[in-house]
């Protein structure tokens, strides 16, 4: 598909570094956890998870995201998608645990909402650099209990999501989902592996995308050759055992960069 034009009808500053862009186009059939390729015309095209059926939530980190932040309500971008494999939805009555770090809350907030209509319990561990950067706290609170951690201790607990995870009894959760910085997810992976819970856990991963449609191979993981853009971005924990996850990723040229 060619990029579809999407007008930005509303923007919401969620935190000092993140903004939600609402479009006049809604991806009703999108699965939770799928992404769209967002074309900032004349600049770049970058992957973004749908944080609502009709919106993306973007953290400003570099060139393309900064240029996106310059686009006002009434402006437009091109969108292709939705692409990739989304989360496996929980079944009726199950209890789920979400572990979100930073902008990793973007795919997990819609999942929390979807889960809360069928699940017996939706618990979230939400981590951020500081209190102002806690993303979608309200959305998670609507769905169930939330454990908050901040790196600098400006809200609740000082520390990392893994500190909370270490104390929870994970055997009480039928499904676990996580998205955040890779180092955070690596530590989550370590704990869940130890607890024997990997098979019940899904990780939403991030690699550099070129084509975004599973052809070029830029986003392939070692040693399986799984494509993050097409076979992922959501992977079951068992698919990541022994992989490059948490160790290195490839840059746009394909060179390995250690974490």
């Amino acid at each position, binding site marked *: *598909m060619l990029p579809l034009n999407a007008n930005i009808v509303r923007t919401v500053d969620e935190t000092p570094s993140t903004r939600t862009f609402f479009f006049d186009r809604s991806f009703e059939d999108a699965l939770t956890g799928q992404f769209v390729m967002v074309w900032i015309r004349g600049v770049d095209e970058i992957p973004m998870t749908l944080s609502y059926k009709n919106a993306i939530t973007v953290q400003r980190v570099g060139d393309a995201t900064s240029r996106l932040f310059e686009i006002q309500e009434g402006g437009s971008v091109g969108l292709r998608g939705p692409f990739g494999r989304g989360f496996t939805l929980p079944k009726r009555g199950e209890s789920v645990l979400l572990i979100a770090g930073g902008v990793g809350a973007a795919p997990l907030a819609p999942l929390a909402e979807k889960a809360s209509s069928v699940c017996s319990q939706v618990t979230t561990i939400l981590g951020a650099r500081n209190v102002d950067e806690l993303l979608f706290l309200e959305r998670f609170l609507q769905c169930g209990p939330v454990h908050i951690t901040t790196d600098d201790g400006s809200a609740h607990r000082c520390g990392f999501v893994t500190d909370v995870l270490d104390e929870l009894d994970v055997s009480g959760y039928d499904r676990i989902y996580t998205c955040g910085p890779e180092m955070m997810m690596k530590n989550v992976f370590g704990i869940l592996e130890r607890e024997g819970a990997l098979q019940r856990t899904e990780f939403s991963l991030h690699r550099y995308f070129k084509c975004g449609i599973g052809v070029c191979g830029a986003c392939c993981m070692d040693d399986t050759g799984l494509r993050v853009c097409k076979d992922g971005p959501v992977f079951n924990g068992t698919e990541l055992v022994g992989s490059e996850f948490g160790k290195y990723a490839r840059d746009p040229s394909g060179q390995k960069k250690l974490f």
Partner: protein
Amino acid sequence: MVNITGLQLKNPTMLAAGIMGTTGASLIRMAREGAGAVVTKSIGPQPKEGHSNPSMVKLDCGYLNAMGLPNPSYEAFLPELEKAKDKAGVPVIASIFGGNMEEFRMVAEGLTPGKPDAFELNVSCPHAMGYGASVGTDPEMVKAVTSAVCEVADIPVWVKLTPNVTDIVAIGKAAQAGGADAVVAINTVRGMSIDIHSGYPVLGNRFGGLSGEAVRPVAVKCVYDLYANLDIPIIGVGGISTWQHAVEMIMAGASAVQIGSMVYEGLNVFSDISEGIHRFLEERGHKKTKDITGIAHERF
């Protein structure tokens, strides 16, 4: 078994260059999916990030791409090649590019320790300034580059041709004169798409190369003409998505085929297409792909 320039392929379908070919792991995965051989991403002398996105889009009639030859350099790719060679279980062909004879030679020598089964010279990428087709549209350059690599390589050398020329046969002959063991045709056809909402060209590089469905008749004609005029084998590529397409390409003159964009539809294309070819040959009482290679030339 299909024999191409001395390489033994268990079936005549190969993974085309630039598709799932940046890492050893992905090449191994494609081999397991049934490809008879795999060609790596085109590898050059220095690391290259490629063009900005969008770098590939699907059209109604095919695909447009302008990746811009992203690659980690031959030095960083060597371990990937070694890994692919170790585990793929099928021939691994190293696609290489450079801006001149020296660069081509440097990359070929640099990858030789990885023991590729053949080199495929990319003199045909339509959208990387100073590389690819800027070499491949000049018969003298093609001949010079081919013989430069042949001098240092003791494995077969294939030359991949661009259709973006008036006379592809002249370029094919230049490759043959330079010592090429086979030619591969075709690379993508120059193309462009414009977003009518904004007037912006869609690809980050503004223009790129067309592949898939739309280029198949172009590829069939190129292969047909090359077969009529060259003495070396031809590997057909461009728009193949079914076994019928592959058979058509073989009848035009291809000894084997490569499949690129169709990977979009699913990784099972290699097994589906090779099984289809096999069934077709069997039903018609043929023993080998070779028996139908170029038969379209005998019909008039």
